[in-house]
């Protein structure tokens, strides 16, 4: 491949004065006219580009011919890396996130992140990813469980699985933990996703403590995470039962911008965020068989919930006003 590129680039030395973009297009066209298929023509036209751009285009060409990896869960690291700058821009400019305690998250092995949540789209999970990738000494992409309904949405479902989203099922979570992954869960579930604006940062009941059972069964430590800011990005004022039933959604939110502005209503508001990772709670010492011990499960579940709730209030005070 590199040999053929060298050979193809030799005649292009004379074109050095031409702008690289024009040179690229010219070579692309001549390649196509010579009867080559698009990926091949693109491949040879790349030779006239500067190195940086050349790598970028080669990756795109490679992807176009199916030359990329997705793991068994559909996570696509190359894709995740490609959208990372976009998420970083949201992190820095849009939400001005301040993160604290990222280094407390276990650096390797199975581990559970438990956080508060509002809204269907997992923006909070992606911002937690950015915080960990930036501030953790041994960064890794967390996998996060996403409300099932979102996996029936075109495009959204594909992007989510490519950046590490997995349908929220205990089977999936347990398997990921057995694979020694870092897994983010939002135990408020649908109740959290459909939270009203006036209930923001008031944690809903943590189900029946299913996430604790998971942690006990797999011996994974639980790291509580408080996310402040994420519950103001889609201020839900009410919902429409009829439209929810028509669209098959768990609820149909009415926000100041949705459905008034149509798809633009999906643009999250630029609130100011704080993410605090708390001290991990070890569970390995209890043993897997205690997963059926209701008392222990509810006790740990309450402990996690209280920690997150307390940290939410603390960080709300630290943050001050929501949008400026």
């Amino acid at each position, binding site marked *: 491949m590199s040999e*053929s590129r060298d*050979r*193809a680039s030799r005649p292009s030395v004379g074109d050095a004065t031409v702008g690289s973009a024009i040179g690229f297009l010219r070579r692309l066209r001549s390649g196509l006219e*010579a*009867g*080559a*298929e698009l990926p*091949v023509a693109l491949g040879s036209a790349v030779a006239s580009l500067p190195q940086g751009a050349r790598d970028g285009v080669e990756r795109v060409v490679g*992807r*176009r*011919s*199916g030359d*990329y990896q*997705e793991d*068994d*869960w*559909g996570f*696509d690291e190359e894709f995740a890396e490609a959208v990372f700058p976009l998420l970083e821009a949201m992190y820095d400019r849009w939400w001005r996130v301040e993160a604290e305690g990222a280094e407390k998250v276990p650096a390797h092995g199975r581990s559970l992140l438990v956080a508060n949540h509002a809204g269907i789209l997992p923006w909070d999970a992606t911002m937690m990813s950015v915080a960990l990738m930036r501030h953790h000494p041994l960064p890794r992409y967390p996998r996060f469980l996403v409300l*099932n*309904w979102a*996996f*029936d*949405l*075109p*495009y*959204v*479902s*594909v992007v989510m*699985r490519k950046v590490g989203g*997995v*349908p*929220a*099922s205990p*089977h*999936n979570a347990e*398997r990921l933990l057995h694979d020694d992954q870092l897994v983010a869960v939002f135990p408020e579930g649908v109740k959290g996703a459909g939270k009203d604006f006036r209930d923001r940062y008031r944690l809903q009941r943590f189900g029946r403590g299913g996430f604790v059972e998971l942690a006990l069964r797999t011996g994974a430590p639980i790291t509580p995470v408080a996310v402040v800011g994420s519950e103001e990005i889609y201020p839900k004022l009410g919902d429409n039962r009829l439209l929810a039933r028509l669209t098959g959604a768990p609820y149909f939110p009415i926000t100041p911008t949705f459905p008034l502005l149509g798809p633009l209503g999906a643009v999250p508001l630029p609130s100011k965020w704080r993410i605090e990772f708390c001290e991990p709670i070890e569970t390995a010492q209890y043993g897997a068989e205690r997963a059926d011990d209701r008392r222990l499960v509810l006790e740990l579940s309450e402990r996690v919930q209280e920690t997150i709730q307390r940290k939410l209030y603390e960080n709300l005070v630290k943050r001050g006003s929501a949008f400026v």
Partner: protein
Amino acid sequence: MAGRRVLITGVSTPLGMQLARRLEADEDVKYVAGLDSKQPTGRLDRTDFIEADIREPSELAVIARTRVDTVVHNNILRRPRSGMTSQTAHDINVIGSLQLLAACEKADTIRSIVVRGSAGIYGSEPAAPQFFTEEMSRLYPLRTRFQRDVGEIENYFAGYARRRPGVTCTMLRYQPAIGTSLDTQVTRYLAQPLVPTYLGFDPRLQFVHEDDGLEALIAAVKRPVRGAVNVASRGTIGLTRLLRMAGKPTLPLPPQLFGAATASMQRLGMPALSADFQRLLRYGRGVDLARLTDEVGFRPRFSTAEAVADYLRGRDAAAPAASGHEASVPP
């Protein structure tokens, strides 16, 4: 294990014939019988061919006389054969399995029954577990006719296994198969000049390479285990990546139009896509292989991505330079 006597139903299918040849070559197997409604196209040496319609009890009476200890039920159709109505396919699958079991009741030599069933019983669901394990077959309602057929077949065999504790019933749940010697929904789908997909969906798919499918069947005959066992090649592949590897132009269709559009393409000579396959193209499906590797003791040789790549290589070798693709790449 020596001196085994094996009967294979659906012996005239490519997989049935491959299995018969392998068992013929196996010195532990003393006797091989093959049952089908039509003669096999290839040559079989010492297989005792029984021409019988699996739906007809009178024609299955010979099973008791073969005195076999193992029955491999390889006659469950994933889709109606050409010129066959879906009603006939349903009869062959459900009534055929029922009659086969009735015939097995009368044969007291039988020690194990291996069924080549389908992972279709799990369905394809947007929020499904990413890897179904064997006990998850009733997580979702059975939505399509084929799924309900598979559900009934599994019930029959489970009932038989309960009543006859001396017989080991293995229900192999196969993911869709891929391979150059096969003519399956997957290979037909990939052979289209323009491939319809669901707009905005990129399901994770899992196939079984034809070699893995055959080896798993042989492994299950050699070492039968009770209950269901998933069979597939390792891991999954995204549909988009698969179609890019195949170099196929796609026709993304909005989900609301997909059924109608593919039905009209069918009138233009494109292959029909079954309801199961359509759901697969939208939501995909993956299965867990722990039981296959740990209990049956067979580790698939291919990953799904390798199975696809192998299939594409074989297909391109069969039709050389048809696309001119190879010729345009400098050496």
